[in-house]
């Protein structure tokens, strides 16, 4: 598409977009220097359309190069930059400055429940370990000539849980996961749900057996923190409840 301009007529000057100063309080931790994490404040000039990730970039590029955080795509798909912003787990790349209360400082810290490595980076290994345990891949014995046929309704059944980007926002918002590191956590159960309710998959019983464990779905206390935290809008708690129901019904999901 091309911009429509009228010959001989000057385009009106773009309205001045107001920028403002935002204070960010970031929980810093350098394992080589610090014994305890501490809060450090930064003032950055931001536009309302900027995101928290832009603020972090500005700090890292212009003020303090030692600030450490993960980000890859910066567009809410890779799931690298989940962090706790103003006490809620969100993706820094999907949180607009204008949606936060800028009259107060914006608190940014690493997600909880996983070992803190540096500044906003945590060790994601325990998270991925429980993800691996639920066998997040298609288990099917048949080898069709072309594709595996599925109706629209069958696809719809697990559509919600296919949206997961493994950012750990849900798992690290779960109070059960905070205290019980053995618990699979919401994200692993969501990804099990994605295959348990997939009509093409034959391993649902295997996954239900894994989740019917002491540290499986029964640990869930339906606090809905995970559903609230999910940047993809997945109904996480509902998915966990559906897995519980499937186990109680004998796993004919």
């Amino acid at each position, binding site marked *: 598409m091309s911009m429509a301009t009228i010959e001989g007529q000057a385009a009106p000057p773009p309205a001045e977009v107001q920028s403002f100063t935002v204070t960010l309080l970031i929980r810093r931790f350098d394992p080589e220097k610090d014994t305890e994490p501490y809060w450090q404040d930064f003032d950055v000039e931001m536009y309302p359309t900027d995101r928290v990730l832009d603020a972090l970039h500005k700090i890292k590029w212009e003020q303090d190069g030692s600030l450490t955080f993960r980000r890859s795509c910066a567009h809410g798909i890779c799931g690298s930059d989940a962090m706790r912003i103003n006490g809620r787990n969100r993706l820094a790349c999907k949180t607009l400055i204008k949606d936060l209360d800028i009259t107060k400082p914006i608190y940014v810290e690493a997600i909880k429940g996983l070992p803190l490595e540096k500044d906003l980076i945590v060790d994601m290994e325990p998270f991925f370990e429980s993800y691996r345990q639920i*066998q997040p891949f298609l*288990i*099917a*014995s048949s080898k069709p000539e072309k594709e595996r046929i599925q109706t629209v309704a069958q696809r719809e059944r697990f559509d919600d849980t296919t949206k997961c980007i493994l950012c750990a926002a849900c798992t690290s918002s779960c*109070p*059960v996961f905070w*205290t*019980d590191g053995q618990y699979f956590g919401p994200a692993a159960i969501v990804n099990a749900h994605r295959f348990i309710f997939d009509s093409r998959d034959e391993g649902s019983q*295997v996954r239900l*057996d*894994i989740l*019917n*464990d*002491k540290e*499986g779905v*029964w*640990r869930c*206390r339906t606090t809905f923190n995970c559903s609230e935290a999910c940047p993809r809008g997945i109904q996480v708690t509902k998915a966990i409840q559906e897995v*519980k129901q499937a*186990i*109680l019904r004998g796993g004919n999901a």
Partner: protein
Amino acid sequence: MTTEPVEWPRTARAATRNRGINWEKWGWVYMRVSGVALVVLIFGHLFVNLVAGEGVNAIDFAFVAGKWADPFYIVWDTLLLWLALIHGANGMRTLVNDYVYRPKVRKWTLRALFASTAVLLLLGTLVIYTFDPCIGDPQSSGLQELCAGR
């Protein structure tokens, strides 16, 4: 680049620790089932004791003796005792698992919880089934007529 076909399953899954009863699952089911039953039992109990008839003024030794003369209330109170106490103890177990981090302290807290629950259950059941309305002084409890023949 070649892609080698990988036969399924590539590696056998580690055996699930599935031995005996799945306590975590049945505990979860128990909390829901007993919860529903307890809504009826507790509000029924409160209504009979506090609202029906003379209301709260009716409660004394004779009132309890009168209730337990009826097998219906013996069953009712037994169900109330067992369902509520185990429901509560299981909830406490969850709290202990959540907040007691040190394994040794946790183990002993859970044992103390289990022991106190067992003692309370036995004691309560004993009282319900061995209750004697003529214990003590029938004069003061107002059960002279009932106990006169004893």
